[in-house]
């Protein structure tokens, strides 16, 4: 990999300040000429008018801007649009399912958030939905503890996470069976335990969860 690379003399490449960026967003070819410092988040919002991706902290902490890059969740505020040229991006706008009759239907994860009241102000929701959509593809049947781990990188300041964790589990249920009955109304003791154990042993939860997930895949 590294041997004699320096021996093959290369020429410096030309630097750029602006560049035409072509990407596939939600299955559609899109392009715009942008400053090279344009983050993917701002590219989506300002240049492609896809404002569903939310920009919170702009330094990779909050998770609101999470999109899928070639299917994997990434922070769009930590990527430059020029770096991901040629790749496939999925945003919140691309999660809904187009029915044969032309009507858009919520994806199982979106439906689960509605069923479980998984959002209040909605600011974190696009990042939550993209993260969970990919998370459930990697691990279709998460435990409550694994559901907590799945959303650990996404901040929500409204819900206390309780209903979001329930929505992850509900989404897994809906993916298996779109007609699964709604969970019982009211307080759920199981997820209370989930959040309690998170506070006690977040590191061990994470290690165990990752270990288990690796084992399953």
């Amino acid at each position, binding site marked *: 990999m590294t041997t004699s690379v320096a021996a093959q003399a*290369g020429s410096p490449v030309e630097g*750029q300040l602006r560049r035409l960026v072509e990407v596939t967003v939600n299955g559609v070819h899109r392009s715009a000429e942008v400053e090279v410092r344009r983050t993917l988040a701002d590219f989506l919002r300002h240049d492609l008018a896809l404002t569903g991706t939310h920009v919170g902290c702009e330094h*990779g902490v909050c*998770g609101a801007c999470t999109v899928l890059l070639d299917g994997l969740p990434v922070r769009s505020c930590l990527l430059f649009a020029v770096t991901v040229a040629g790749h496939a991006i999925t945003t919140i706008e691309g999660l809904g399912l187009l029915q044969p009759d032309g009507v858009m239907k919520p994806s199982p994860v979106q439906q689960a958030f509605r069923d479980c009241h998984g959002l209040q102000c909605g600011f974190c929701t696009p990042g939550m939905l993209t993260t969970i959509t990919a998370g459930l593809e990697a691990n279709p049947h998460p435990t409550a503890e694994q559901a907590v781990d799945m959303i650990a990188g996404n901040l929500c300041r409204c819900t206390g996470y309780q209903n979001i964790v329930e929505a992850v589990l509900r989404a897994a249920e809906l993916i298996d069976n779109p007609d699964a009955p709604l969970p019982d109304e009211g307080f759920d003791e199981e997820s209370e335990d989930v959040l309690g154990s998170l506070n006690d042993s977040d590191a061990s939860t994470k290690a165990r969860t*990752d270990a288990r997930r690796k*084992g399953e895949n």
Partner: protein
Amino acid sequence: MKPAPFVWYSPRTVSEAVATLATAESDGSGVKVLAGGQSLVPVLAMRLAEPGHLVDINMISGLDRIEVTVGGVRIGALVRHAELLAHAEANRVQPLLGQALVNVAHATIRNRGTTVGSLAHADPSGEMTAVLALTGGSVTAVSVRGERVIPADEFFVGPLESCLEHDELAVSAFFPASPAGSGSAFVEMARRHGDYALAGVCAVVSPSATGGPPSVRCGFLSVTETPLVVDLSEAWAACTQGNEDPVMSAVHAAIDPQDDIHATAEYRSHIAGVLTVRAIHAAFENVRPRADAGGNLGRRDGVAGPMSVVRSEQ
């Protein structure tokens, strides 16, 4: 919270990249290499750094390889944390990789962040810097002047400072295989899930084949300015059941934690001592039979998968 303007370069080969690095900085405005960007882009967004030139290596082919041999694991500069974590053979040969990687930020960050990039970032609270130091690994850097292999103990020179020259590109890192009959573990404590650790410890233990005292070595993060490796064999040998004070005292003497808004130096010191004891115990539990040492790639039957030895320590 937007990066200052910079000139962006997109080389397709390592030789183009190093030629670009060598010439880009002629105006004195600074040049940085962009790989995963999970540390660099926040730094740019907060304008803690405003380099005039950014050499984006993401289009270079061949830097995304993981090469596993009996001797160890070599990873290219574009190997993402998540790819290394998922690589079964790499984690068989050096289980400490996966044991540490699950602690690196969140899964979403690991999808993009590169392991070599985190080494080049040289953050003393970085998990993989500590692992490179403890395993005695190295970083290979290339410039127009040629290639050099830099041992871990020379690579890190200060907080967020490696010995890489501005025109050098870290093209790969090498983590030696875990020694035959050894065990390892990684534990850390953070205020919030996925945050920088207040303190973290990785341990490698090797029980003596001849019945003597075991070798016990630990690497530390977030409590020193550069990754610190301490041989705790003697201190461990002085410990008795229920009394691990010798190890904790040795740790407190070796580290130099600082006060900040997250924790006092005293608290970090306390945590480091406690975590060290936990890491050592966990490492002993993870000791693999000599026949199943990392170098033995051929044997697969009846051997626990690499991730099954990841420890949870709370």
